[in-house]
């Protein structure tokens, strides 16, 4: 005789539970955390470097870097002033997940930091589905990638708490329609806070770092 057993359980439940645990751990230690996601080359590491330089005397920052291979990004973070920089090599996985972040958190004395920056694997698709437990998730869109990305990658654009628009210094050189881009963003993520900036020239960086400092302070 066949019986139907109701379950109603989310398929990514296991990861979500671990993400909640990661968050508790960060909160208990008083650490504010962000998960930075973007396509390869959009400027995650550059933004982190410039952020670290500007926050040098204001906050104690740890960086966790996810990449398929090399420690290039963690090395750059350490050089730019991160008090700790941990590299996770995913060995082929295209995104970080809560298990991997937990492993990294175990290597840190979280009481020594105010802010944890997680740099996710360069990928506009997969990281959107895997919560890590950070307080906020940030997407970096860059001007040369084109203005149609919100329409093509709705999952990512919908799920983030803040949007950095990097490489605005290249606007005169590439065909990027800002109103078309912003419209796509607004529909998917109404009212999301945005930071048009250039990590290279420094334009717009103050608004971004001020916001970050405010977020950290508001959690204390």
């Amino acid at each position, binding site marked *: 005789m066949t019986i139907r057993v109701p379950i109603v359980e989310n398929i990514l439940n296991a990861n979500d539970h671990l993400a909640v645990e990661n968050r508790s751990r960060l909160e208990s230690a008083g650490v504010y955390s962000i998960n930075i996601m973007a396509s390869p080359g959009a400027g995650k590491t550059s933004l982190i470097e410039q952020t670290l330089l500007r926050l040098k005397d204001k906050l104690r920052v740890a960086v966790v870097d996810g990449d398929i291979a090399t420690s290039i990004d963690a090395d750059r973070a350490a050089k730019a002033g991160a008090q700790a920089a941990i590299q996770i090599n995913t060995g082929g996985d295209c995104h970080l997940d809560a298990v991997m972040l937990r492993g990294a958190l175990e290597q840190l004395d979280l009481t020594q930091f105010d802010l944890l920056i997680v740099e996710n694997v360069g990928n506009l698709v*997969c990281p959107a589905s895997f919560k890590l437990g950070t307080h906020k998730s940030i997407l970096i869109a860059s001007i040369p990638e084109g203005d149609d990305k919100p329409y093509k990658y709705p*999952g990512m654009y919908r799920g983030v708490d803040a949007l950095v628009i990097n490489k605005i210094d290249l606007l005169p050189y590439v065909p990027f329609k800002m109103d078309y881009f912003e419209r796509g963003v607004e529909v998917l993520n109404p009212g999301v806070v945005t930071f048009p900036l250039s990590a290279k020239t420094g334009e717009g960086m103050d608004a971004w770092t001020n916001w970050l400092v405010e977020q950290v302070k508001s959690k204390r």
Partner: protein
Amino acid sequence: MHELAVTQSILDISLRHAQKAGAEKITGINLVIGEFASIVDDSVQFYWELYAQGTIAQNAQLHFERIAGEMTCTNCKLSFHPKDTDFACPDCKSEFVQITKGDEFRVESIDVE
């Protein structure tokens, strides 16, 4: 995407609940997958045939109930199916729309003996 991890997750969830229910065999697994959850049914089916071997779920039929995506305009309350590149309300053209269906990604129930 990640059909392999997804398949494993479906198997874990199903076996756990089957064990709780004292079942001897799982004959069917009922999945609810929304349009905006990107999963390729055939890939899940493929991995399933490998992963469920040797478990009480090995001959279970996977059933995919697909939920069409739906957006609702917060301005005029119209519910609609979004066109590819234009998410604005087809009636009042407002951009303040919310996804109300299509995000589902769950194991709804299992059929056991």
